[in-house]
C-alpha cells in the first residue's frame, strides 16, 4: 500500500504511557509484539533499551517513557513493543517503542482531530499531530517520525524550556 492510500485511512492505534493516552497512525505501525527479552547494548543512551530479534533482523527498542521524560518503564503483562516504521531523513527505519499498554485501534475522522493547541499545551507542538476527543478523553495523536528520529530525550513535557514563551503556558491545558 502506498503512502497516499495509507494517509486516507483514519485508523489510529492508541496506547498508554502511565495514565496518559496517545495514538499513532496505523500507517506507521508494523507490528505489536509482546514483551520479550531485550539485549542491552552497553554504553548506550538510557532511553535506548537494547535490541531484539524481529524475524531475523535486529530491532532497536526505545523506552518511550524515558524518551518522553517520564520514569523508566516497569515491565508488566501489559507492556508491549510497538514496531514502528520511522522516516529519518527520507530513510525508513524500524524501531520498537516500549509502551505500558496498547489500547485499541480507533477510527477517528479527520474532522474530529483538532489541531494541536499552539499555546496552552503542556506538550511540544512539533511532536503532536493533533488532539482527538474520544468519549470525553483527550488523546494525543503523535507525529512518530518527529518523536523517534531525534537523538535526545525529547521531553515531551516542555517544562525544561523556561523561555519567554513558556511563562504563560504553565499547565493551562490540564
Amino acid at each position, binding site marked *: 500500500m502506498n503512502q497516499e492510500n495509507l494517509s486516507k485511512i483514519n485508523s489510529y492505534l492508541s496506547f498508554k504511557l502511565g495514565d496518559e493516552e496517545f495514538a499513532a497512525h496505523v500507517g506507521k505501525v508494523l507490528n505489536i509484539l509482546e514483551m520479550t*527479552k531485550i*539485549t*542491552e*547494548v*552497553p*554504553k*548506550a543512551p538510557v532511553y*535506548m533499551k*537494547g*535490541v*531484539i*530479534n524481529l524475524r*531475523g*533482523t*535486529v*530491532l*532497536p527498542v*526505545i523506552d518511550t517513557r524515558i524518551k518522553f521524560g517520564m520514569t523508566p518503564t516497569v515491565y508488566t503483562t501489559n507492556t508491549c513493543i510497538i514496531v514502528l516504521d520511522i522516516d*529519518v531523513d527520507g*530513510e525508513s*527505519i*524500524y*524501531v520498537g517503542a516500549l509502551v505500558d499498554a496498547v489500547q485499541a485501534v480507533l477510527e477517528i475522522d479527520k474532522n474530529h482531530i483538532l489541531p494541536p493547541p499552539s499555546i496552552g499545551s503542556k506538550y511540544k507542538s512539533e511532536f503532536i499531530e493533533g488532539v482527538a476527543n474520544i468519549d470525553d478523553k483527550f488523546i494525543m495523536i503523535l507525529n512518530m517520525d518527529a518523536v523517534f528520529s531525534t537523538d535526545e530525550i525529547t521531553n515531551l513535557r516542555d517544562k525544561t524550556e523556561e523561555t519567554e514563551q513558556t511563562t504563560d503556558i504553565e499547565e493551562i491545558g490540564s
Partner: protein
Amino acid sequence: MDNFKKKFIEEATDLLEGLEKSLLALEENPEDLSLIQQVFRVMHTLKGNSGMFGFEMIDSFTHEMETVYDLIRNGKLKATREILDVTLAAVDHLKLLLNEDNYNDPEVIGNHKELLSKVALLVKGDSASEQNAHADLNVEVNKSVEEKGEKTYYIFFEPINEIFDNGTNPLYLLDELHDLGKVEVFAHLNKVPSLNVLNPEFCYTYWEVIIATSASLNDISDVFIFVEDDSTIEIQEIADYNLLTDEIFIDDLKKLASTQNDIGLSSVQNLTKEANSRKVKDKIKSFNKDRSTSKETSISSIRVSADKLDILMNLVSELVTTQARLSLFAEENNIPGLLPIAENVQKLSRQLRDTAFSIVLIPIENMLTRFQRLVRDLSNELGKEVVFVTEGAETELDKTIIESLADPLMHILRNSLDHGIEDSDVRVKKGKPKQGRISLKAYYSGANVMIQISDDGAGIDPVMITEKAIAKGIISPDRKLTKREVLELVFLPGFSTARQVTDLSGRGVGMDVVKRKISDIRGEVEIESEFGHGTTITIKLPLTLSIIDGLLVKVEDTHFIIPLLVVDKIYAIDHEKIKKTFNNVVVLDGKQIPFFYIREEFDLNESQEKFEQVIVVNFEEKRVGLIVDHVIGEYQAVLKPLGKHYKNQDMISGATILGDGTVALVVDTNKIIKLFSKHEVFKIKEEEKPEK
C-alpha cells in the same frame, strides 16, 4: 532498449578496463604481438557494439583507433610511447563517451576533435615515414580498412571535341582523380566516328568513373575546373562508403560496360542498392562470427548481477541463522536421529557459506590497473621517475570492500608520489637509486587481508609533525609522544602535513578521510615511517563483511561475540585474584597481561561467581585480557547492523541472532580496548571533536 544499453555500457566499461591493462603491459613490452592483438580486438568489439547501440561517437572514434592498431599489428607502425599516450587518453575519453550526458559538453567535444586529429596524425606520420617502395602496400592497408568519410561518387565526363586545342589532356584529369582515391574508369569509344570522318585533333572519347575517396564533392569538381565550361560533367554521390571494395559490384559494372555503350547513372545506382544489401548481410555475418567466437572464450564464467549476489548472500545468512536454531533444538530435545541431521546441516551450511562468499570475492587485481595508470600519469606530471610494483594481485576480497577501498588507496598512492618520492636529483644526492619505488603488497593473514603500500621516499619527519600538531593546538607542547603516537597524528582530522597545498594531495582532507573510510568497512590503518627512508602504510581488512567466526561469551545475561581471529587464549581466573590485582595486570603463563573487567567497563555489578574467564586477545602488537563471566563456545555470527539509533556505539560492530532467537552483540575488540585504555592520542581526538 535501455536495458541493452545498460548492458553495453557495463560491458564496455569492462572492456576499457581490460584495454587499459593491456596498454600498460604493452608499454613494458612494445613488441608483444598478442597484446597488440588484444588491444585491436577490444577496439574492434567496442566499435561493433557501440555502433549497434547508437553510440556513434564511440563508433567512429574506435574506428580510428582500430586503424592505428591494425597498422601496428601489421608491422607498419611501432607501438611508441607517443601512440600509447594518445591511446590511454583515448581510453579516458571513451569512458566519458559512455555517458550520453557528456555528449553536449563542449569540453568533451573539443577533446574528441583533438584526439581524432592526434590519431589521424599518428596514421599519417606513419605513411610519411614509410619509404616509397612500401607505399603501395601501405595504400593497400589503408584501403582494406574503411576510411572514415570515404564516399563513392559516379562521374560522367564528356569533354568537347576540341579539348586538345586548349592543350588539355583529359587523361591527366583522370590521373588526378587517381590521386584522390580508388578509381574505376570506364572509357567509352562508341562515339568515335568511322575513320573517314574522324578528325585526329578531336577527342571523341568520354568516360564514366567510379571513385571512392574521402575528398569532398568540391575537390572532385576542382579537378575539372579548367574544362567544366565546355565539357559535360556530372558528379553524383552514390554511396557513403567505399563501394569499390565490393568485388561483385565492380564485376557487375564491368559486365555492364562491355555490353552497353555506357553504364549510365541509373544502372550504377541500381548496382549500388544491390551492393548495399550485400554489405548489410556481410555485416550480420561477421557480427555473428564475432559473437560465436566470443561465446566460446567466455564460457568459463558468467555475468551475474550484483543484486542477485546480494540476495544469495542474504539467503545464506538466513540459512546459517536457521541452522543455529536447528542445532540448538537438536541438542535440547534428545530425539534419536535428529542430532546427526542437524550436524549435517551445519556442515553443509558452512560449506555453502564459504562457497557463496568466494563468489563475491574478487581479486584486487581489478583495481590495480587504475593505480598503475595513476602512478604512470602522476609521475610523468610531477617529473619523477617511479616504478610501481605490485605483489599478491591475486589476493581476493569482498567486492563491496574493493569498491570502497579504491578511493582511500588512491589517496595513499597520491601522497606517496607527491610527498613521499623525492625528485630524482634529490634522490641521487641522498644516495638512493634515481628511480623511486612504490610497492603495493597484498596478502592473507588469518581471516584478514593486509594491503601494504610502501615507498622508498622521504618518509615522515616526526619533528615536523610534532611542531605542526603543536602549532595547530592539537597537542600541548610539553606532551611527550611515542613515535607511534606521533605518526598516528596524521590521521587526525584537519591535519595535513603538506607545506604547500598541491593539486594532488594535501588539501587537509587527507589521511583522516582515509582512516574513516577504511574503518567504515571494519578495516584498520597503520602507518610506519623511517624519516629519510620511506613510509609504509598497512591496511588490515576483514575478508568479508557479513559472517564471522566468533567466540560466544556471556556477561551478566547479555551474550557477546568476540571475533575468533583476535582470540589468543582463554584462561579461567579466580574472582578474588582479579579484585586483588593492582593496576589491572594479571600474570598468565608467566607473562604480565593487562586486562579489562568487562562488567566494570559496562557499568554492571560485580559478578557473584567464584570463577571468571579471561579471554586474551591480540591488540595491535600487545596481548590484552578481557574478563567475562563465561565462555559458551564457537559461533558463526551473521552480522546485522545495529541501526542508526546505535551509531555512536562503535565498539559494537553489529549484532547476531542466536539459535534461541535472542540477540548477541558482536564486539569490536580493538575499539573496545582503545575506549577502555583511553590512550593519549585517543584522548586528544575526543577533545578535538567539540571544537569542530
